[in-house]
């Protein structure tokens, strides 16, 4: 749990973005991911960046935390940028690094692609940062509902998803606990030759699997005992509903899309 990576992490709060209907967030992010590819000049990229950064600010999550949490992605962004910088040969030669010519087109294209990449990751992270796993699966279940007509097991899929998501934190805690227990019994996970470090994983993995199977069995038993039966006729404790806030958000997003098509060339 001490890891600094925030992908898939939910941060509880009561911001506007947190309160949006998860279906709206899901569809918005999905559309955003598609529309990012329509941006093709400074103005349209700037427009989308303003939208993404405003959304990030609205979550009320510390911006520094978000940026730092994307560290592994930064590496990819910078790598993409450098790749384009050295490979693209368009426009004029601006200057040379270690004898390699840098073209103006390369600078622009590298910047654009990295920015696009960054925007994609930022928006999808904002989604998981502000939406609980349960909300995400509920939204997916409702959005996929029409597929029921062709006998696609929508409810079962959503249930599987929410159970797995529910147990990720439990498994992480369990991992930390068991690795500490084994470290106290002299296992060294951090130093030593590679072969030994791989062997050190066995005393960690076996208890984890045993625990996970036990938990799955208990869960199945408990569901059985309470007469669980999915899908048809099952009601929800919290019904999702589209409210004024959601309509406004959709309107704003529509304006963003229209703006995008006005600004692009």
């Amino acid at each position, binding site marked *: 749990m001490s890891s600094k990576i925030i992908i898939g992490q939910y941060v509880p709060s009561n911001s506007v973005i947190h309160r949006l209907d998860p279906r709206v967030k899901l569809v918005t992010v999905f559309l955003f991911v598609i529309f990012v590819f329509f941006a093709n000049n400074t103005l349209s990229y700037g427009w989308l960046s303003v939208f993404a950064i405003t959304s990030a600010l609205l979550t009320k*999550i510390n911006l*520094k935390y978000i940026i*730092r949490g994307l560290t592994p992605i930064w590496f990819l962004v910078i790598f993409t940028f450098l790749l384009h910088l050295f490979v693209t040969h368009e426009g004029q030669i601006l200057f040379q690094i270690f004898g390699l010519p840098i073209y103006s087109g390369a600078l622009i294209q590298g910047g654009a692609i990295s920015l696009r990449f960054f925007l994609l990751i930022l928006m999808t992270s904002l989604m998981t940062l502000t939406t609980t796993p349960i909300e995400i699966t509920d939204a997916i279940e409702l959005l996929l509902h029409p597929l029921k007509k062709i006998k696609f097991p929508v409810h079962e899929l959503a249930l599987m998803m929410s159970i797995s998501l529910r147990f990720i934190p439990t498994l992480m805690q369990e991992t930390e606990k068991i690795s500490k*227990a084994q470290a*106290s*019994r002299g296992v060294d996970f951090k130093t030593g030759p590679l072969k030994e470090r791989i062997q050190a994983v066995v*005393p960690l993995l076996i208890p984890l699997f*045993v625990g996970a199977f036990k938990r799955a069995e208990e869960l199945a038993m408990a569901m059985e005992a309470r007469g669980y039966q999915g899908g048809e006729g099952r009601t929800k404790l919290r019904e999702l509903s589209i409210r004024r806030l959601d309509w406004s958000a959709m309107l704003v997003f529509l304006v963003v899309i229209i703006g995008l098509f006005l600004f692009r060339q």
Partner: protein
Amino acid sequence: MDIVFQQVSYIYQPNSPFEHQALKNLSFSIASGSFVAIVGHTGSGKSTLIQHLNGLLRPTVGELRIGEYQLKANEKLANIKALRRQVGVVFQYPEHQLFEETVEKDIAFGPKNFGIASADIERRIPQVMKAVNLPLDLLKRSPFELSGGQMRRVAIAGVLALEPTLLVLDEPTAGLDPKGQLEIMDMFAALHKQKGLTTVLVTHNMEDALKYADHVIILENGTKYLEGKPEDIFIEKEKLESVQLDLPEEIQFLQTFQQRFGLSIPYRGQSITELAHEIKQRLEGMNQNE
């Protein structure tokens, strides 16, 4: 081994929305050979504290010393394995750490990691099985075929097989039946005396703290709330209640007894039977006076 905490603070996940300060400016010292109980309600930082005792966690601020080993903020301990060899930790629900094919191999796992000779390990195995009151014919069985209580005992045996000089116990009897709890606690107490160990026991059970410990530290919200001899600490009814802790049964009884009958019996570590006896004698004495 003696233990000295000097203004130790520990922060989980610093600089994140989940940042949580679990220990705040904690200072205390524990003499070598004492039996210390660490008490406090859930979330008060007990487990965080004991994870410092074998270097699983390092203080965010401050420093501590375990025997000759010094643990400081931002400074890795070079010979951490040497420290861990001397500190046996029984975690909460230690049965979750079992993984080997047989009970015997699981008990041998710790000592082997610390490079103890196999002849020595073979000598230790029957000893620790006897200590946790398990029959030797379980040695060849898989730990996963055993009952929950038996698994707990195997896990404890695995820690005892390290022959630690500092024994750290995090709620070792939680979830066991009353008879098993008494048996295990008595075993730890006997071992403590017999081997001259330093023992740190985290517990929710005030009766255990009163019965076994010679020093009590009460944690509240990551700070030290009270510290002292159990007989002194456990008469502070108001202070304990304000941090949601109960008095041990024996002392609760004596205080109520005094209120109801005006008869004061000082607590000097008597067991329940001894107390019953003492009350009987007092009552007989009163009858004769009339």
